[in-house]
């Protein structure tokens, strides 16, 4: 087993998995020509998974302490290197390449962008109590502490939202009752609106053509007769036109809203059908348990929570990752490299947070490797952001839920 783990077998596996995920899911409908992006993404993914693997080994006690320590250090250095040097540089490089003015001196400007990034990255550390005078400028603790702040904030925001959204999505209590006739009525309204838009646009086109054929060109209305003509002619066609155009704009806005509402209703109907299946019922029950735990977590009860919280934080992290990756798949117009960076920071900080929930005896090695970071600060920071995020998500979902049923009341 030792030999298997020491060899890069797992890394290669994770790399392959990351590559496949990238190709199949994230960029299914888009042709990625720069292979660099794929490689970087897969490397980040591979090393992040290795970090999780190492934590598990830590708990299970596999391998000798020395070799674990070595692997930890190696992993952290590589990930930090990628996150802080490689990825921002490439993002800067791609952005600069797209701006035609700076095309010539691409490399130079990419370096400038990178230095700007590093400056702000460094400044990030100032307001937080993470700097201890013992350590040098470029030590690993400095870098991790900053990456940690960004990542912890991201994670807390996502966890807060996830803690509220998960029960809301899965629990059938919140599902509004949608019937087929509601959907059909909306679709009919959409169809009628589209037809109205079409007929008005036809009128505009016809009027424009007549104007063109009659030579009612504004530039021709010069001279004495032109002025008389413009005064005595019937309410000019162009005034009518702008009126109809305004009506068309309003109707188009209405059609967009109707479309979105219909999609929403269809999705709700599908969720209702899903909740009647076995899978749906299973998730519904899970949702109840989960929501109880989430409420508990929001009010921060620390009763025998060490071990349970470790497992459940793990679950929250996994579902948040899933939600994050699903959200990433929906954003298919973003510049490809920009998807890699936040995800990498996310992974690094999730290590920090797992440490928070880990039982005391396993914390030693993590502490040793990561140096003397102020872990308590991170715990408190996470809790604060988590609370803020969860409460604002509750508010947001409450408002969204309240608004929706009123629109669908059949008169």
């Amino acid at each position: 087993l030792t030999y298997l783990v020491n060899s890069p077998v797992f890394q290669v596996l994770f790399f392959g998995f990351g590559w496949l995920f990238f190709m199949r899911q994230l960029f299914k409908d888009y042709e990625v020509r720069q292979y660099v992006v794929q490689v970087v993404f897969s490397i980040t993914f591979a090393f992040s998974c290795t970090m999780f693997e190492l934590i598990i080994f830590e708990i299970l006690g596999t391998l000798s302490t020395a070799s674990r320590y070595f692997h930890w250090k190696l992993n952290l250095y590589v990930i930090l290197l990628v996150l802080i040097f490689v990825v921002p540089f490439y993002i800067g490089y791609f952005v600069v390449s797209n701006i035609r003015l700076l095309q010539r001196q691409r490399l130079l400007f990419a370096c400038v962008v990178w230095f700007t990034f590093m400056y702000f990255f460094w400044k990030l550390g100032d307001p937080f109590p993470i700097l201890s005078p013992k350590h040098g400028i470029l030590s690993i603790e400095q870098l991790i502490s900053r990456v940690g702040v960004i990542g912890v904030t991201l994670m807390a925001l996502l966890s807060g939202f996830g803690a509220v959204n998960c029960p809301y999505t899965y629990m059938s209590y919140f599902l509004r009752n949608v019937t087929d006739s509601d959907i059909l009525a909306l679709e009919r309204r959409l169809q009628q609106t589209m037809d109205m838009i079409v007929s008005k646009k036809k009128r505009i086109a016809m009027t424009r053509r007549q104007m063109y054929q009659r030579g009612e060109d504004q530039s021709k209305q010069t001279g004495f007769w032109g002025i008389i003509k413009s005064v005595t002619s019937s309410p000019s066609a162009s005034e009518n036109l702008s009126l109809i155009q305004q009506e068309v704009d309003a109707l188009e806005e209405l059609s967009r809203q109707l479309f979105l509402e219909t999609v929403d209703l269809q999705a709700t109907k599908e969720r209702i059908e899903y909740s009647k299946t076995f899978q749906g019922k299973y998730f519904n029950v899970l949702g109840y348990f989960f929501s109880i735990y989430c409420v508990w977590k929001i009010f921060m009860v620390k009763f025998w929570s060490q071990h349970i919280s470790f497992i459940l934080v793990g679950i929250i992290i996994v579902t948040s990752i899933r939600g994050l990756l699903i959200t990433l798949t929906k954003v298919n117009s973003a510049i490809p490299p920009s998807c890699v960076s936040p995800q990498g920071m996310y992974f690094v900080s999730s290590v920090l947070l797992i440490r928070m929930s880990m039982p005391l005896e396993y914390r030693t090695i993590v502490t040793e490797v990561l140096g003397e970071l102020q872990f308590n600060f991170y715990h408190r920071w996470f809790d604060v952001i988590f609370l803020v995020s969860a409460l604002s998500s509750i508010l947001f979902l409450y408002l969204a839920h309240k608004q929706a049923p009123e629109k669908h009341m059949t008169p």
Partner: protein
Amino acid sequence: MASLDRVKVLVLGDSGVGKSSLVHLLCHNQVLGNPSWTVGCSVDVRVHDYKEGTPEEKTYYIELWDVGGSVGSASSVKSTRAVFYNSVNGIILVHDLTNKKSSQNLHRWSLEALNKDSSPTGVIVSNGDYDREQFAENPIPLLLIGTKYDQIPENKRNDVLARTAFLSEDFNAEEINLDCTNPRYFAAGSSNAVKLSRFFDKVKYFIIAGFTKCSFLPLRAISKAMLTSLRV
């Protein structure tokens, strides 16, 4: 306006290929200044002179329905989109010449639109695999348009054009390759303008001749049966 006079042409394609720019160019002869994401469907009207230059010349309004979204959308979006696919007379398939995936997705787009009529629930009948026979018997005229022609590097142009030629054969359709930010591609008298005009004439002709999906197939089936019996 009587519904008999309606000519409805769908404009389908992946997100970001330039359907809205294309429709704006076709209808207003101007370049679209501020393209943005199309939510749902946006309709525009083009004035077309059927059989231009002949004594039978008549003016028709062609409705161009620009349907937004991607082919891999959630099923709720797909079922809502199906509302727009009713009584379609012609389809313009738009793909991005710099993005191979967008042309590969056109098969799925056309299946989604064509299958709408044959099953009431809007569920795609075929398993998504492309079938040349289906398009050979298809009575709805198709036109293939490739956009962002100016963004292809010189040395790759021939490969891209060869690929699109295959594609137009697959769909049994004419093809036009252009750049939507340049109105001269549709200048009067240019080959593109002629192709476009022919396509709209074909659409109108099919309507007049009464070729709908229902009435066309039995005719084909009968002729096929006759042919096979003759071979025996």
